[in-house]
């Protein structure tokens, strides 16, 4: 029993898209964010509120990925147009922290062949984990392109000391319907994890990167 109606969200999405695509169009692709203002939540005592959510459509299409693959997966990566590195390439880094850090900065996320996952900590040490970019495994049976899309569609949400949480839910080039759907999904999922559900939500706002915010709750 959601407290936001899709018609109300649609109204605001429409206004948001209008602004970003017509009123003041920017030279880059603006991301649409859902900002949740929480209330009656004590970050010190309450159970943690953090995790990931996979959205139907990729919110930020410009995510860069790299695949650590065995021979099979390196080939697959090339065929889907994703950069790849082999075990030999990783060994060449010689566990040099600086080089690994550079690698971590170069890409938004990593995927690794299932058969290699066991070796990754031994080959690269903790540097990738420290950067928050330890790879997600992919098996030979998985569709590589599908996996890449999955990783790109997954958004992280985390509540820290302040009572506000923001997640990317789409971009201004998306269809209105899809954007509305993604916003509803994200909002309802996040609220389901709150102990008092909607009682813990003070406000819900959608905003494009450079545009004004529109309150939906």
């Amino acid at each position, binding site marked *: 029993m959601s407290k936001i109606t899709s018609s109300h969200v649609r109204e605001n999405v429409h206004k948001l898209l209008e602004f970003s695509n017509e009123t003041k169009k920017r030279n880059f692709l603006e991301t649409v964010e859902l900002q949740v203002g929480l209330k009656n939540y004590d970050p*010190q005592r309450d159970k943690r509120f953090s*995790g990931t959510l996979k959205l139907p459509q990729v919110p930020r299409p410009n995510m860069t990925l790299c695949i650590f693959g065995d021979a099979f997966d390196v080939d697959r990566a090339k065929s889907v147009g994703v950069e790849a590195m082999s075990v030999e390439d990783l060994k060449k880094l010689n566990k040099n922290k600086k080089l690994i850090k550079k690698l971590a900065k170069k890409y938004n996320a990593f995927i690794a062949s299932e058969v290699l996952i066991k070796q990754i900590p031994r080959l690269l040490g903790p540097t990738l984990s420290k950067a*928050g970019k330890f790879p997600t495994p992919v098996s030979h049976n998985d569709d590589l392109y599908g996996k890449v899309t999955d990783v790109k569609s997954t958004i992280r949400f985390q509540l820290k000391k302040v009572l506000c949480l923001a997640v990317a839910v789409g971009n201004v080039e998306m269809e209105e319907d899809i954007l509305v759907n993604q916003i509803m999904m994200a909002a309802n999922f996040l609220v389901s994890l709150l102990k008092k559900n909607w009682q813990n939500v003070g406000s819900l706002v959608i905003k494009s990167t450079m545009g004004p915010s529109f309150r939906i709750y």
Partner: protein
Amino acid sequence: MRSSVLFDWQSSTKDNWVLNLELFPSSNSFIASASDGSLNGYSLVNHSNTPIFSIPKAHESSINSIKKIDEFTLASCSTDGVKVWDLRSLSQSPIHSLTNAKSSNFLSLGYGHNLLAGGTELVGVDAELHIWDLRNPQEVVRSFIDSHHDDITCIEFHPTISNYLMSGSTDGYVNVYDLNEQDEDDALHQVINYASVHSCHFTSEKRISILTHMETLAFYELNDTNYEVIAEPEPNDLGDVRSSWPDCEYVVDLNPAGYVGVGANSQRKLALFPFDIQQEKIDLEKPVWFADAHGDEVVRDLVVVPNTQTALTCGEDGHIRLWKLPYELTPSAPIGQKVDKTEGEASDIEVDSDSESERKKEKKEKKKKEKKEKKEKKEKKDKKDKKDKDKKKDKKDKKKKKSDVRFKPY
């Protein structure tokens, strides 16, 4: 199947949340930690709202975690570091007070093989894990500062392989470290990339359970050291358990002893289900309901007291409750110990013939007590009777008489 309340402890401070419980079976007591920074110990047999052990200002703020070290020692942690308490002592001071250079907020504790490990919150770019040897706690034995990039929420030492340590974090990784490797860069044995970790346990020698903040549960295999070859089975991802378990809005925790606590605070419900650790399956056929549990507040901890057919719960309503369970939960033996496996969950594990007869006596006594407890007026009289009976029984059955005298009320 319903359970009934045997006793209810209420916190004296307003808006206080009781967050964690640790059992001390040899002295028939337990310690509870709370959000007001207090540690209180109560007896499981002589039910009274007066604690037998109390440190009202153990920490300056909410206690994030407590860990039992041995039958008389407890460690706790908060924003003012890690403190180790001697439960026999009458002083309000800890025997050890440990922290890191940044005086970070310590969120989690792990204990094993004389080592106490503490994990911190993310401060800047570092979330640190420090290990102290309690025989010589002045110096840190070693630290891991580069292995997580967010709050370290749980730490567990491997029950039998003494050089393996596991840590879980809100960054979604569960790391297993090999303490025999001197360098942090070489010590990382395995990284499991799952999701923001609420708790992680070694459910067997080679199996790890991970419960996340999104209420998803998965089981992973502990890797062997042959890194070039994958011989391990696939992980078992149960996904979001709220969709498969009844009345589940959140999971209190999965206990490797073989049970899981599941709550739905909006419906004032709490249930306990046996969990087959071998099969990694919940037994939905045998729920234990805790009527009204802690009202519409979240239950933060649930512990089954072994061999007593009782369980303890505590929650954000500031209460601790002792419940009579409708049947004895068959506990799994601690990892590393051999147990005769009997078929069927209803039968008790036969470990000791002595303890079995003891348990039977206890069950008979408790059944008698159950009947009496139905009428409220008689309850008070019967509590007194119970205390007398318990005292006599304690003297006869317990080998250690000293345990009664240990906790002196102030």
